[in-house]
């Protein structure tokens, strides 16, 4: 039947777009809302912060949460809420800048070694082995120790280590995709290697990498604030969640809100990215 009858648009019920399906998933929607709001806070912190985050008021130090200061004030009398909000721009920037270069490098390298295999792939395998044997944080700290503390050096350090995880994932997925005849048919059609890799294999292989990217953005925030906490990332008086937690550490028994509030911000954004990643896995999967 279906073979002979023409496929008319009217006969088939209109298919729901993937986005419509994804928007039915509460997790994905919640993730989008969290990250949407976080982005807004990152782009325009001035619109939401009730006070100047760097305004020092010695008459009101370490005040507990109140209507005037919902998150309390710190040891210099700065408004905690304003500092947590103004940290959004640094921490959201971390999520992107610490991952996007690793993503691009990893995708290209992974696709190339997965397609060509051979000697380059063997060398790549050794590099991966060498890097993943070390705990991520230890390796990043080592690189930062060499380059010196600061945000830019932190991005470089995370990228130097992080691209391997993307490349490994991409390589495996490209190899799996090459088992499909559409890759062979690209060769038969006389297409160039570049076309086969980047036009045919890459779009089909990239889904798990994009999903991992979302998780990695959450991890990047966590890693960035860890380094901030250790004094190797963002430097005070810059408001950054890790730095804020470190500042509150000495007063943890008397002024618990100083460390708790930025901690909640880290958890929320991390959760947001993870939920989006989960939804994207369904959104990006090809059908049939």
């Amino acid at each position: 039947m279906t073979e002979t009858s023409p496929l008319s648009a009217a006969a088939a019920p209109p298919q729901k777009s993937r986005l419509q399906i994804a928007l039915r998933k509460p997790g994905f929607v919640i993730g989008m809302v969290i990250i949407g709001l976080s982005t807004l806070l990152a782009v325009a912190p001035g619109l939401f912060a009730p006070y100047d985050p760097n305004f020092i008021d010695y008459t009101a130090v370490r005040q507990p949460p109140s209507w005037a200061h919902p998150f309390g004030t710190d040891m210099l009398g700065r408004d905690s809420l304003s500092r947590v909000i103004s940290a959004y721009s640094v921490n959201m920037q971390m999520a992107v800048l610490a991952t996007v270069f690793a993503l691009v490098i990893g995708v290209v390298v992974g696709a190339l070694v997965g397609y060509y295999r051979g000697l380059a792939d063997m060398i790549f395998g050794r590099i991966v082995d060498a890097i993943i044997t070390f705990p991520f944080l230890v390796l990043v700290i080592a690189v930062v120790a060499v380059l010196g503390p600061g945000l830019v050096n932190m991005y470089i350090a995370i990228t130097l280590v992080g691209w391997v995880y993307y490349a490994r994932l991409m390589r495996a997925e490209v190899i799996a995709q090459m088992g499909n005849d559409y890759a062979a048919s690209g060769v038969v059609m006389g297409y160039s290697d570049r076309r086969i890799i980047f036009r045919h294999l890459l779009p089909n292989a990239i889904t798990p990498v994009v999903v991992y990217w979302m998780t990695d953005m959450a991890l990047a925030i966590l890693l960035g604030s860890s380094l901030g906490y250790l004094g190797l990332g963002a430097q005070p008086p810059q408001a950054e969640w890790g730095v804020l937690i470190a500042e509150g550490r000495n007063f943890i028994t008397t002024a618990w809100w100083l460390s708790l509030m930025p901690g909640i911000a880290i958890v929320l954004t991390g959760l947001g990215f993870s939920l989006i990643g989960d939804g994207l896995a369904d959104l990006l999967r090809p059908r049939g």
Partner: protein
Amino acid sequence: MSETVMEIRDLGLEFQLGRTLADVIQRRPGRVVNALNGVSLALKKGETLGVVGESGCGKSTLARCIVRLYTPQRGRITYHGQDIFAEDARADRSYNRRVQMMFQDPYSSLNPRMTTGQILSEALRVHQMRPESEIDARVAELLELVRLPQDAAGKLPHEFSGGQRQRIAIARALAVEPEVLIADELVSALDVSVQAQVVNLLLELQERLNLTILFVAHDLRLVRHVSNRVAVIYLGRIVEIGDSETLFARPAHPYSQALLSAAPSLDPDDKGSAIRLQGELPSPMDVPPGCPFHVRCPHASEICKQQEPRLTAHEGRGEVACHHVKEINTHA
């Protein structure tokens, strides 16, 4: 006799299997699969050559060598006299345009993220088959040619059935206006009713476009319906090749006889006089010496164990590779 388009000479290909731990301990070399063992054949312009054999006999490997997905270790393939594996020919993508292949699995041979229109126009653009302004019209023409509705151009592969996908694959192959089509088990993944439509479409297009087709399949009745000539492959060798009707009516090689008699008959009175072969198909990792068929052959003698028979022409038949063709076929 029409012109020879493609000539395959003594093609040989081995796949190296990795050494297992047991191999290393026992100091054996890694094992080797003999996929092709000296296949020779010639494709003539406009013909359909069927290639049949059991699973694992090297049919698909042969097809994949012809389109340069595999590089054979021995022998050569010439296309209009030009060696396709020569250094300077390898980079020549126009060969890929002239010799196209269609794959067995319609669910994996189309990029799931490209619409039919993108798949076809990509082929047209890469090979500059048409100026940019005529590409849409040509895509419509190709869809028409394989009898797909025009709105198919905007749809993704998952929206089509297996038979429709195979027709998209045919359209893609035809987009670059090839001379030779390799059909590797083109319809074996499809329902029987759909098989007929796709095969008949292929035959009709062959006539209209003067195509030469190498039709690889394991379905004997289908091959008989489609082919002018047939080659029977056993363990990477051609054991018999000849005119389709003659070969199907009076197979000469004992393997061909067994293979054809194994196909079920449509005649209800035929209670079956199937020639049952002894033993299993030997592993291509361990091909018997001499005639590779001698371990299963009811007519095997001493010479079969030692000497490999060559393909030789026989009166009133095609070419057969068997030491005992004459005896077998006089008292048969």
